[in-house]
């Protein structure tokens, strides 16, 4: 009897940890597999709404897609305002570059400091309060300051997104390292692993699922943050296009830009998901 109860306790403990990841993954998988169907439902709802809302406020789906195609390589009505001379694509490249560069930098900073804080007391005592204090500041508060201090330029958006991403990854990496069952480290130590090995063979692979989950979340938020930095005054990017068009209350154009941005964000999310699967193929949950 004692054996039986400890057996269930034992399994549920391990299972719980993986379940969290499973939850994340399962919540996402249908969106990828059946995304087409979901998209159709959303489009249907959208189309229904156009029957009751005026076209100027809510254009037809097909008009929005046509607009994306029209403005893709060049948009004369935008060029008039000095943006998007080369169309949605060139602005999207600007936005995408900013997002990917700053997510890469921010994720590196956050992960390294987060893992370090989980292992070195001193690092934790110094960094934790800073991040926790900074973490309570809604990131967007910093945007106008960056725009004034560093100018309405790329660097401001980069810094904003880096700050955001590194804070998230710090917390995710630290939590992942804290949650790693200490039995693994005990086992590694009794097998003769040096501290460096413990980091390389345990800490890094054992925390990869959560860190990747953090990167996905951060990436998702980064698109919006980058867009609003552009809305607030950057010279280029999808956000800039949205800003110009919203001054002319061009609903069709705004929706075209947002749908395009959304599609790119979904694409990158799916790419991250694929990387996620491959790197965590050992994980118990999606067997």
């Amino acid at each position: 009897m004692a054996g039986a109860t400890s057996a269930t306790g034992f399994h549920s403990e391990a299972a719980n940890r993986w379940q969290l990841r499973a939850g994340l993954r399962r919540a996402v998988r249908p969106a990828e597999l059946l995304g087409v169907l979901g998209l159709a439902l959303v489009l249907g709802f959208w189309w229904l709404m156009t029957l009751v809302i005026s076209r100027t406020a809510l254009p037809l789906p097909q008009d929005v897609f046509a607009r994306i195609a029209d403005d893709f390589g060049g948009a004369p009505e935008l060029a008039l305002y000095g943006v998007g001379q080369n169309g949605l694509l060139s602005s999207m490249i600007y936005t995408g570059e900013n997002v990917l560069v700053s997510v890469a930098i921010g994720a590196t900073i956050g992960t390294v400091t987060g893992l370090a804080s989980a292992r070195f007391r001193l690092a934790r005592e110094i960094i934790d309060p800073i991040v926790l204090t900074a973490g309570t500041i809604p990131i967007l508060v910093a945007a106008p300051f960056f725009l004034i201090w560093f100018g309405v330029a790329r660097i401001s958006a980069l810094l904003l997104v880096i700050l955001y991403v590194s804070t998230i990854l710090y917390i995710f990496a630290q939590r992942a390292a804290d949650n790693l069952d200490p039995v693994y480290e005990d086992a590694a130590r009794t097998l003769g692993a040096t501290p460096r090995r413990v980091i390389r063979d345990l800490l890094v692979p054992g925390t990869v699922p959560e860190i990747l989950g953090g990167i996905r979340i951060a990436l998702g938020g980064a698109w919006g943050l980058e867009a609003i930095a552009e809305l607030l005054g950057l010279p280029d990017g999808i956000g800039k296009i949205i800003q110009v068009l919203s001054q002319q209350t061009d609903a069709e154009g705004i929706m075209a830009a947002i749908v395009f941005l959304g599609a790119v964000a979904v694409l990158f999310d799916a790419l991250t998901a694929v990387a996620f699967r491959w790197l965590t193929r050992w994980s118990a949950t999606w067997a």
Partner: protein
Amino acid sequence: MTKRRSVGIVVLVAMAGAWELVSRIYTGEAAPGEPMVPGWEVVFTRTLRSLSDYWGGGLGVVAVSEGGKRTYEGALLAIGANSLDTIARLFAGLGLGGVGGTLLGLAVSWSRWTRFLVQLPGHVVRTFPLLAMIPLFQLWFGISFVGMMLFVAYGAGVIFFVGTINAVKNVPPIFIDYARVLGASRLRLYRTVILPAIFPELRSTILLSLGLGWTLVLGAEYLGAQTGLGQIIVYSEQFAYVDRMFLVALVFVLYASLSYALFDRLSRRLVQWVPRGGP
């Protein structure tokens, strides 16, 4: 716990000191007479008084635009009034989005039908970059309380939707089986087993949505509100009044921190039963 708090205070003081130090060393100006990094003394005297510009008059304090003087009373009234606007937009949105998102999230596990109706559109909608959609909400609902509230509700709803789905999936099946064996109806199962069981995890969802909510309401106010703390910040930015931006941002951050602390204290009581202090 107390040690952690004292370390936090030390860090805050250090950050404030660093700010003052930078303001003394770096005296660059964003515009003539407007320092890039305003020192504390300026912030709490001249800057604070200048906020009375945003008081529309009343309660015995004449608006600056109508020839009134810049006073501390006016400034405090201005901060209070704009804070109320911001906070009302935030919490109305959070409440609406929280309830809506949770219900939709629960619907995913309720039955096959509701899952089919809700899950896929929900996941498609949630992948859209939120902050980029502010202009769209403005277009649809105007620059109004309702527009901003709905925008916050939309963002919070997405978080609650995903958070609820994950939390329900993480409810150990044994609890559900146990309740079923005891004869619980579906409604009773949700009320007595699933809701309490997902609450600890929803706690982090609520905290997350609170953080996002502050960001969303700020974003909405940045892009063209007539009142609110965010509006003052972005308006000041256009005139390079860094000191005003800074002071209002401080107030804003203070509210955000208070809201986290308050929620933490309230919810801690509700999750006392969770082993090892909860998530």
